[in-house]
């Protein structure tokens, strides 16, 4: 039997799994794959991580975790610092209020939700960056990025599903 303190540390570290997955996902997005154009349309792994865990374990994806994942992405991608942090925060807030719609429903509902949320999030980031830099960015890259994100979600959701039981449900 482990002591109470150890159990608390154990539970605490398990709560950090979604944050670690989000930070890792952003790193994977930034690898130098050497494939033409891939960097511009890279599926939004950080956004998908925030979405998946905010629905299933909102306590393990608190606002600060969404913020940190977004800030990490901003810092590494060289985009305006605070941009994706803001977007992920807003998305996390929105997703948590809509949880009843998704929890316990078929995967298709979940997937549909991701399609809506990633479209809104990525288009929001695209528009905000346009305002920030005072220009209109190529919309084709944005559309391809949204499509790739939606296409990859079932794979990522399947991977995350194996970790779902390891993360305690805070509520």
């Amino acid at each position, binding site marked *: 039997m482990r002591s109470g303190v150890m159990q608390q540390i154990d539970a605490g570290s398990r709560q950090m799994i979604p944050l670690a997955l989000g930070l890792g996902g952003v790193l994977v997005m930034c690898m*130098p794959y050497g494939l033409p154009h891939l960097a511009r349309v890279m599926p939004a792994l950080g956004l998908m991580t925030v979405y998946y865990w905010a629905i299933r374990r909102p306590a393990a994806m608190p606002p600060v975790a969404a913020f940190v994942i977004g800030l990490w992405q901003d810092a590494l991608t060289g985009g305006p610092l605070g941009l994706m942090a803001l977007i992920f925060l807003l998305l996390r807030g929105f997703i948590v209020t809509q949880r009843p719609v998704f929890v316990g429903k078929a995967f298709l509902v979940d997937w549909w939700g991701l399609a809506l949320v990633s479209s809104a999030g990525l288009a929001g980031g695209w528009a905000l960056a346009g305002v*920030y830099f005072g220009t209109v960015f190529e919309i084709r890259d944005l559309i391809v990025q949204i499509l790739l994100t939606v296409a990859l979600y079932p794979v990522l959701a399947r991977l995350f599903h194996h970790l779902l039981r390891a993360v305690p449900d805070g509520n």
Partner: protein
Amino acid sequence: MKSAHSRLNRLSAPFRGPLQRYSFFVLIVVALGLLVFGKAQTPVVAQVRANLSDVATPLLEALSHPIRLARALGEEASHLFFLYRENERLREDNRRLLKWQAIARRLEQDNRHYQALLKVTPEGAKPVVTARVIGEFGGSFARSILLNAGTRDGVRKGQPAFSGDGVVGRVVGVGRLSSRVLLLTDLNSRVPVSVEARGYHAILAGDNTDYPRLTFLPVAAVVEPGQRVVTSGIGGVFPPGLPVGKVVSVFRDKVRVKLMSDLDRLEYIRLFAVPGVAATARAVP
């Protein structure tokens, strides 16, 4: 396990709600603040970014090993596939280059002779450091790469970055272990260049497409596809004469340039000392 966890929950429950709600608004304000201060180019924001990049550097380096292996294997396979044709091409190149070598030797000798006559001090730019690309970033609104060399290795903000083939951009952010290079294709990239043959001065301006534009060309300039574009050295950031690209299309006042280096496949980058700042760059360990 369960009981300890639920006790923890019970204890923290009254605080968690308001704490989360406030943290949400506080973080929104922080994010907006970062955006505003970042836009105003506050050094603190640049420092935050550089520090986060430094944290990511060892992780990216570790992760990049399997990727490099896969890339190398892929290139190997395609080389084998085109071996015969490649060999023919190289033979042809070799014949051509030998002829040029003779010419170059003679010109070099002439040049040395004239320089000695004029007492010119050689200004050849020396690379400060060669670094590996450990991250490439796009999204739809930025074109930059992350290198595994920072202030520790003598990298300074503003240094021009060069691949084997041509100029790729310049350093815009430096951490201790890592540095970020803004590529020539990025929206915010502006590099003084000259168009060879006639020596027109212009600014090469990135616009997030693969082919940056030549702007501020002289009104009477006659530019044609195929003309070489090199750095002009004006402004003092880039040494003069480094190859940049070739003019590919001229459509009314829109002149586009195809870059010498393939920005999608960068692996090693050489950074040059900024003329004039070179001495201080080398003095710092």
